[in-house]
C-alpha cells in the first residue's frame, strides 16, 4: 500500500465525533472546515451512542474518533477503555478532545490507549490550530513510510 492510496483510504473514512455539547460540536465542525479537513463526520452525543455506532454492521467504521471526556452517562474514559479492549475496534485511533488540561486526566487517557490529546481552547483560533496539527499528523506525518520501507 503506497502513500497516496493510504491517504485516499483515510480521506474516505468518516471521523466519529463523540460530543454532548452542541456548541462544541459546531466549533469543531467549523474548525474542520477552516483546517480543510473534508472527511465525512459522524456525530454522536454520548458514549453509549458511540459504542452503538461502532458495533453497528451497517455503519462504516470511522478512520478517527474524537472523544469528549466529560459526558453524562458513559463518560469518555469509560468509552475509551471499552473501545481499546474490543479487538475489532482497538486499532481505530482515538483523539481525546476535552476542556480539562488536568495532568491526571491526560495521564489516565494515555494509559487507556488514547492516541493523542487535544485541549479545547476557549479561543476558536486555538482550536483551528489544534485541528490543523491533528490533520497534519494524522494524514501526512503518520503516513510517511519508515526509512526501511516497511509499514
Amino acid at each position, binding site marked *: 500500500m503506497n502513500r497516496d492510496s493510504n491517504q485516499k483510504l483515510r480521506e474516505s473514512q468518516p471521523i466519529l465525533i463523540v460530543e454532548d455539547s452542541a456548541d*462544541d460540536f459546531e466549533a469543531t465542525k467549523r474548525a474542520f472546515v477552516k483546517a480543510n479537513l473534508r472527511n465525512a463526520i459522524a456525530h454522536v452525543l454520548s458514549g453509549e451512542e458511540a459504542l452503538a455506532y461502532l458495533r453497528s454492521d451497517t455503519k462504516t467504521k470511522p478512520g478517527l474518533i474524537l472523544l469528549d471526556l466529560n459526558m453524562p452517562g458513559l463518560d469518555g474514559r469509560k468509552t475509551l477503555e471499552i473501545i481499546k479492549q474490543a479487538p475489532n475496534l482497538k486499532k481505530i485511533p482515538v483523539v481525546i478532545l476535552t476542556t480539562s488540561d488536568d495532568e491526571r486526566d491526560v495521564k489516565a487517557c494515555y494509559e487507556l490507549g488514547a492516541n493523542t490529546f487535544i485541549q479545547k481552547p476557549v479561543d476558536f483560533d486555538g482550536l483551528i490550530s489544534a485541528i490543523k496539527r491533528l490533520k497534519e499528523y494524522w494524514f501526512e506525518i503518520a503516513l510517511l513510510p519508515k526509512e526501511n520501507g516497511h509499514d
Partner: protein
Amino acid sequence: MRRPQPSIRDILLLITGALTLIIVLLAAKEMYGNWQRLSDIRSLKSASALSDQLFDATEKLSVERDIALSILNAPDEATAADLRPRLMESRHDSDEALRAAMTALDGYDFPELSGLRGRIRAGLSSVRALRSEVDAAIRQPANAHRREVAARWSKEVTALIVETQNLWIGFVRHFTEIDPVVTEHLWYKHFLRTITDYSGRERSLIGQLIVENADPTPEQIAQLLRGQGVTEESWQMAQVLAEQSGLYATIAPYYTDARSHYSTMHDMIQDMFYVPGARHEETYPISVDLWFELSMQASDSLSTLRDASIKQTQKYAQNLIDETERQIAVQAAVFLLALLLCAYSFRVIVRRVIRPINTMVDALVKATRGESVEFALPANRGDEIGKLAEVLRAFQQNLEDIKKTAAELDRSENHLRAVVDHTLDGLITIDATGAIKSFNLACERIFGYAAAEVVGQNVKVLMPEPYHGEHDGYLSRYLQTGEAHIIGTPGREVSARRKDGSIFPIDLSISSFVSDDGRHFSGIIRDITARKEAELALATYTHALERSNKELDDFAYIASHDLKEPLRGIHNHSRFLLEDNTDKLDQESVGRLNRLVFLSQRMERLVNDLLYFSRLGRQELAIQAADLNIVIADIESTLEHFLGERSARIVTAEKLPVVTCDKPRVTELFRNLITNAVKYNDKAEPTVEIGYLPSKSGPDGSVRKKVFFVRDNGLGIQPEFHQEIFRIFKRLQASKEPEEGTGVGLTFVKKIVERHGGEIWLESEPGKGTTFYFTLEASRHEPGFEPKAA
C-alpha cells in the same frame, strides 16, 4: 615509688642497744660473781693464818698430850715433877691456840664448817674433863689406874687432833673452790706441819730415850724410821707444791735453810737412835738439852719458813683481792657505761621510733573515730618511719578527700533524690519478682497511690488487662530467655490503671539492671493523656484540612472544565456571528462582538492563572540540584527577544550557588521577577542585577541567611504597596496593551518562595528602582559550590 632504705644509723643503734644490753647483763652477772667471791677471797688472806692456827692448836695439843703422857708414864716422881710445869705451860698454850683458832673460824661460814666445829667443841670438852683426871692420877703413885687414864687421855686427845685436822681439811676443800693456788699453799703448809709433827714425835721419843738412857726398842726404831720417811716425803711434796703454786721462788732460801737444819740434825742422830744396839757406850753422846736445842733450832728454821710462806700467801691473797676489786671496778665501769649506752639507745629508740609511731597510732585511732586530726609527723626522714609518715600524710590527704567526696556524694545523692522526687516523669523500680521497690512523687501524682501503699506490692496493681494477667509471664520469660516485651524499647505506649480504677495511656520505657541484690527493672512513666488528646485533635484538624484541600482541588477542576465550557461557547458564538454575518452587522455591533471575544479570552487567562495558582500550592515540589547560573542563562536566552526590544540587560553580580530546589518553579520565579523588572522600567537601558548574599537583614530587622536578590533600576514601588503587590490579580498600573498580564506574576513568585520554605520582601526607592530579596530555606547549598567573589 622509692623503696624506703633503713638507715645504717638506726641499724647500728639497734645492734648497739642489743649488744650493750647483753654486756650489761654479763657485766652485772660477773660483777655479782666477783662480789660474792670477794668476801671469800678476803677470807683467803686470813685462811693461811687460820690454817696455821689450826696446826698450831693440834701441835700444842700433841705437846700437851706427850708431856702429860711422859708424866703419867714417868719412872719416878722426880721426873714427873720436873715435867709438871711444862705440862701446865703446854696446857695453857693448847687452850690459847684452840681458842684463837676457834675465834678465827667464827669469821667463816660454810655448810661443812658447823658440823666440824661442833665435833671439835665436843672433843675439847672431853679433853678438858680428862685433864682433871690426869692431874688426879699424877698425884697418885704409878698404878694400873694411871695407865688406864694415860691410855684414855692419849685416845681422847688424839681424837681431838684428828677432828682438828678434819676441820682443816674441810676448810682447805672449801678454799680449793675459791682459788686453787691458795689451796696449794695450804697443802704446802700441811706438809710443813707434817714435818713439824713428826719432828715433834721424834724429838720427844729421842728426848725420852736420852733421859732414860735406854736403847730404842724395835717398835720405837720402826716408828722413827716411818716418821723419817714421812718427813722426807713431806719435804719433797712441799717443794713440789711450792714450785707449782709459784711460792717457791720467794721462799727458796728459807726452805733450803730449814731443810739443811733438819738434815744436819738427822745426820747427828741417825746412827745413835735409828740402828738397834747402836749405843756403844754407857750414855748417849748427846745430852737431852743439846738434843732439844738442836731440835728447836730445826723447828725455828721451819717456823721461819712457815712465816715467810704465810706472808707470801697473804701477799698472793692480797693481790687476788686487789685484782678482783679492780675487776669489779672495771666491770662496774663497763656496767655503768653499757647501762648509759643502753639508756641512750632506749631514749633514742623511744624518741625516734616509738614516740613517732605512738603519735601516728594515736592520730590513726582518732582519725578512725572520725575526729579531725592534725598529724604532727616526722618530716624529712628517708627511713621506714619517714616513709610511714609520708604514707600517713598521704592517708590524711586521702581521708580529707574522702570526707570531701563523701560530702559531695551526699549532696549529689540528695540532689539526685530531689531530681527523682521532683521529676515530672514517674520512676518505678521493681525486683525480679515484680515487687515494687521505689515509687517517686510523680508516680504518686500519676497513679493516685502513696508510695507506702504500693512499695512491696506487685507492679501488676498498676496495670489493666491484658497486662495485669500477662505481666508475670513477661517477667519470667525475660529472666529465662532474655526475650523482651517492652524492656529496652524507648517510649512504648501502653495503658495503666490509677488507684480509682480509671485506665489512662502512658508512655513507658523499661530498662533492666543488676545491682547488689539481684536483677531489677526501672520504668519511666509519662502520663500521655493530654498528648493523646492533642494527637486526636491534630488528627481531626489534619483530616479536615485534607478534606478542604480536596474540595479546593475539586473546585479547581470544576473551574477548569465547567467554567470554561460556557465561556468557550460565548467566545465561539461571538466569532461565528462575526464570521457569518459580516455584511449584516453595523460597525458598533462588530466592535462589541470583538470586545466580547477579547473579554472571553481574558477571562480564560484569569481562570487558567487561578487554576495554576491553586496547583502551585497543592503539587509536590520536584526537588533537584539546580545551578542557578545555568537557570539565569536559560531565562536570558528565552527572553532574548523581549530583552532586546527594550534594550535591557541582565547582570549577574557574582557566581550564583547550586541549590536543590524545584528547578522549573525557581526558573519561573526568576523569570517573573526579571520580566517585571524590565517591564516596569522607564529607563532607556533597563538593568536587572541578580545576586546572592550570605546574610542580610530582613524586613523585621533580624538577620536572614543565604539571601538572593533581583535588583532593577525601574519605577520603584511606593511603600504602601510593598505588601499589596503580592496579592493575586493586583496590578499597579492600568493595562496599556491588551496583551498585558493578569497581575499574578508576583503572587506566583511569593507562592513559589513560600513553597520552598522561604520568605520574600523588597526594598524600593520610587524613581530609582526596586530590589526583591528572597530566601529558599528548603534549598540546601551543595558543598563545593559555595559562591565565590567575582
